[in-house]
């Protein structure tokens, strides 16, 4: 870097300025000068020419004031800027000649300070006075935002309606993200995801002159802004206050809605002072942060120690660095050993609350993956040894030991990803309350087994189906308060959420104590909607299951809450996509219970291994209803209708899997082979396979990007002998068979 380049840069600014008439210092030009000055300061900094840095800084401030429109006398400021250019040239010239600048230039900074109304301190590179918010005088000066007469007041009903609808959506989004943030307080993305909706609501509210909504969202927004910049930490108090704020906004918006409908006189007549105070408290960080306290502090809190005594103890400790403070205090006789040990225990408890670490889920996934591979390899080794006759007793025993360790390791690593269902339940409870309010019902939510753990990925996945079930229970399951009182039930309906582990599954039950499912009504509806054509001889359980069929909806009217045409069939599909199952129990007049079972993790599947030709496939056991070898008579082939098999009185289509996958089978006749009855979302079909090999838990592997969307195959798994078996996706296979 040499001084010539600097001189050239300054000349460039000078010539740019020459072509500018002072009236025309608009924003793009100011931006251009800012960028030139930035480049120039970079050069000057490398050369160590402090006077240039200082003068440029003064000029920078002027430009910024031009941009922020905060200049009292713009013309004067611009001529000051011009003088700055001349001064820069002079300084650089003299540096070139003498390697220094002897004249005084501090007065320039004073002049620049005078025209901009700021204090500019010399000797520094970038900016003068760091004010985050543009200075207040500038705000007043902005002729635009003149508040008098509320010129921006927009009284447009359709806009207001849009705002209500969109605002409500945004607040729901906020709620979801707050709960996410609570789980990941460090995650800036979640803060942003909450910040932005508040910001948007604020913006529109300002146009619609909804001052209370604007003010509250502004305060919440600035709180979040501080959290985002790390000025505040995301404490439970912060989360609470933001949630409370979201609630308040929501209720204001809904009362706005009522006002529009003429149901309420004064929509925004709410007292926010408590909430505002809470926001302020959190803003100022009044709530104390949780951290491990020092032993001395705990002792003082317990009243076992005075501050003076502590100081003395600390002095002793200072002179004997090896000595612990507790020892020093005991030695001096200020506290008893018992008091110290109690305090130490307290300290340990506090510390243990903090003894968790955050781990990137991808790392966890990798770990779990690798452990999965370890287990598989280990099984392979085991098989090799049992195949070899000469395997020694010792080796077999050691391998068995290895097996135990490996499966223990797998269990532990899988459990790392488990989190309690509590959060989801709390969201459900909240939702149930909101929904019941919407439909005018009185509901209490009871929870059981919130601590039951589930794979993190699953938690997110099961959320939507659960939401749907809750909505359904509140909307259709529970009666209105009047109806309940008439039946002699308590006015408040009960929704119960229950979670537990059973048989390697995670089970969620959602019960209501409402009217129960009506057999006759279901049957009538099913026939009317052509969901089924024959209802003879259906068991209760089968009748209840009708509500999971597509096109079925028992709601008499379309309500705001559920019954928008998406029925329980969507729930069933979602549950099955997660390889879960859903069942219903219902007693008329007593209530209905939905029982959804999910596998604990998406990474492992319980499967049945079948053989077709030389290939082995894995069928998810959740989809299998039965396996059989039919009689010759049970098999039918009707031209144009395809092949069917009579399975216990029911005709089911036969799917020759070997045809679909182009495999040479061992057995072609159904009565020689094995049929597996597999349930899809809407129908059951018989798959023709050569042989059932056995049952196994396999770790699901993706087939890689190139083989992602193969019809009928959902993935692969490494089998005990190291070979790969493909996992069949029943739904996809059915579709494939219908196309062929």
């Amino acid at each position: 870097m040499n001084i010539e380049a600097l001189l050239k840069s300054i000349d460039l600014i000078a010539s740019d300025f020459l072509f500018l008439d002072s009236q025309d210092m608009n924003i793009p030009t100011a931006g251009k000068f800012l960028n030139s000055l930035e480049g120039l300061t970079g050069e000057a900094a490398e050369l160590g020419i402090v006077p240039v840095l200082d003068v440029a800084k003064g000029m920078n401030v002027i430009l910024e004031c031009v941009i922020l429109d905060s200049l009292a006398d713009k013309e004067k400021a611009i001529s000051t800027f011009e003088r700055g250019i001349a001064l820069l040239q002079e300084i650089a010239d003299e540096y070139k000649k003498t390697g220094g600048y002897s004249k005084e230039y501090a007065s320039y900074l004073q002049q620049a300070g005078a025209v901009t109304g700021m204090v500019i301190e010399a000797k520094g590179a970038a900016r003068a006075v760091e004010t985050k918010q543009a200075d207040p005088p500038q705000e007043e000066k902005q002729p635009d935002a003149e508040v008098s007469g509320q010129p921006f007041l927009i009284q447009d009903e359709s806009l207001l309606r849009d705002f209500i609808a969109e605002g409500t959506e945004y607040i729901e989004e906020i709620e979801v993200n707050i709960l996410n943030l609570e789980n990941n307080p460090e995650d800036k993305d979640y803060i942003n995801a909450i910040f932005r909706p508040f910001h948007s609501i604020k913006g529109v509210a300002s146009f619609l002159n909804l001052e209370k909504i604007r003010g509250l969202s502004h305060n919440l927004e600035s709180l979040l802004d501080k959290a985002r910049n790390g000025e505040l930490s995301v404490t439970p108090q912060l989360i609470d206050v933001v949630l409370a704020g979201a609630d308040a906004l929501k209720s204001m918006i809904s009362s706005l809605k009522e006002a529009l409908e003429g149901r309420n006189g004064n929509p925004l007549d709410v007292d926010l002072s408590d909430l505002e105070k809470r926001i302020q408290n959190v803003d100022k960080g009044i709530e104390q942060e949780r951290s491990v306290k020092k032993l001395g502090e705990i002792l003082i809190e317990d009243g076992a120690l005075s501050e003076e005594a502590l100081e003395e103890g600390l002095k002793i400790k200072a002179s004997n660095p090896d000595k612990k403070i507790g020892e020093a205090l005991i030695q001096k006789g200020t506290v008893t050993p018992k008091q110290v040990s109690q305090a130490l225990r307290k300290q340990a408890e506090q510390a243990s609350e903090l003894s968790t670490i955050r781990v990137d889920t991808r790392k966890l996934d990798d770990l779990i993956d690798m452990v999965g591979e370890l287990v598989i390899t280990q099984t392979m080794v085991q098989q090799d040894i049992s195949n070899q006759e000469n395997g020694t007793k010792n080796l077999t025993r050691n391998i068995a030991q290895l097996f135990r360790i490996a499966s223990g390791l797998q269990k532990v690593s899988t459990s790392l990803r488990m989190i309690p269902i509590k959060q989801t339940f709390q969201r459900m409870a909240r939702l149930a309350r909101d929904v019941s309010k919407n439909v005018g019902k009185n509901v209490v939510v009871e929870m059981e087994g919130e601590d039951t753990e589930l794979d993190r990925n699953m938690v997110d996945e099961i959320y939507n189906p659960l939401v749907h079930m809750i909505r359904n229970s509140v909307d259709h399951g529970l009666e209105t308060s009047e109806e309940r009182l008439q039946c002699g039930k308590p006015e408040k309906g009960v929704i119960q959420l229950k979670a537990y582990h059973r048989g390697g599954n995670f089970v969620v039950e959602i019960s209501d104590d409402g009217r129960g499912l009506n057999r006759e009504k279901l049957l009538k509806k099913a026939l009317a909607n052509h969901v089924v054509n024959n209802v003879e001889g259906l068991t209760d359980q089968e009748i209840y299951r009708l509500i999971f069929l597509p096109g079925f909806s028992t709601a008499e009217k379309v309500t705001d809450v559920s019954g928008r045409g998406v029925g329980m069939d969507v729930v069933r599909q979602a549950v099955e996509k997660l390889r879960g199952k859903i069942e219903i129990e219902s007693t008329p007049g007593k209530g209905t219970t939905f029982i959804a079972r999910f596998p604990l993790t998406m990474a492992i599947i319980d499967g049945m291994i079948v053989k077709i030709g030389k290939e082995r496939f894995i069928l998810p056991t959740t989809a299998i209803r039965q396996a059989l070898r039919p009689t010759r008579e049970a098999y039918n082939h009707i031209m144009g209708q395809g092949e069917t098999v009579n399975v216990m009185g029911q005709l089911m289509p036969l799917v020759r899997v070997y045809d679909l996958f182009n495999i040479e089978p061992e057995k072609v006749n159904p009565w020689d082979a094995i049929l597996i009855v597999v349930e899809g979302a809407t129908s059951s079909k018989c798959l023709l396979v050569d042989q059932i090999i056995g049952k196994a838990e396999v770790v699901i592997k993706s087939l890689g990007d190139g083989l992602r969307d193969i019809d009928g195959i959902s993935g692969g798994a490494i089998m005990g002998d190291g070979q790969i078996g493909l996992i069949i996706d029943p739904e996809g296979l059915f579709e494939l068979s219908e196309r062929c």
Partner: protein
Amino acid sequence: MDKNIKILIVDDFTTMRKVIRNLLKSVGYENIIEAEDGAIALRTLKNNEVDFIISDWNMPNMSGLELLKAVRADSELSKTPFLMVTAEALQDNVIAAVKAGVSNYIVKPFTAEVLNTKIEKILETL
């Protein structure tokens, strides 16, 4: 002043786009299209002859500033006037936008007249 220019409004909040659209209409601008985020805006700009961009600062996926930078970096779009809408005149934000080549900025809430003046001023300098 040409009221027939094609104006693109970029904001993720539908109601906000409608507010701006209504304000623009009230001062005679009728030729208005919308985009709900920066990425969509860029696509829209490629497929339409847009004369003027009004964009929000705070948007998901691609912020107003990122959109501005992308527009200025595109040889075909680099001269298109760009008016940034912000909720408050945060000095850092405004300066960053100006350095990135914004034509002007406007602080919410604003009246149709102020918006009109800003647009006209920008168009004058073209």
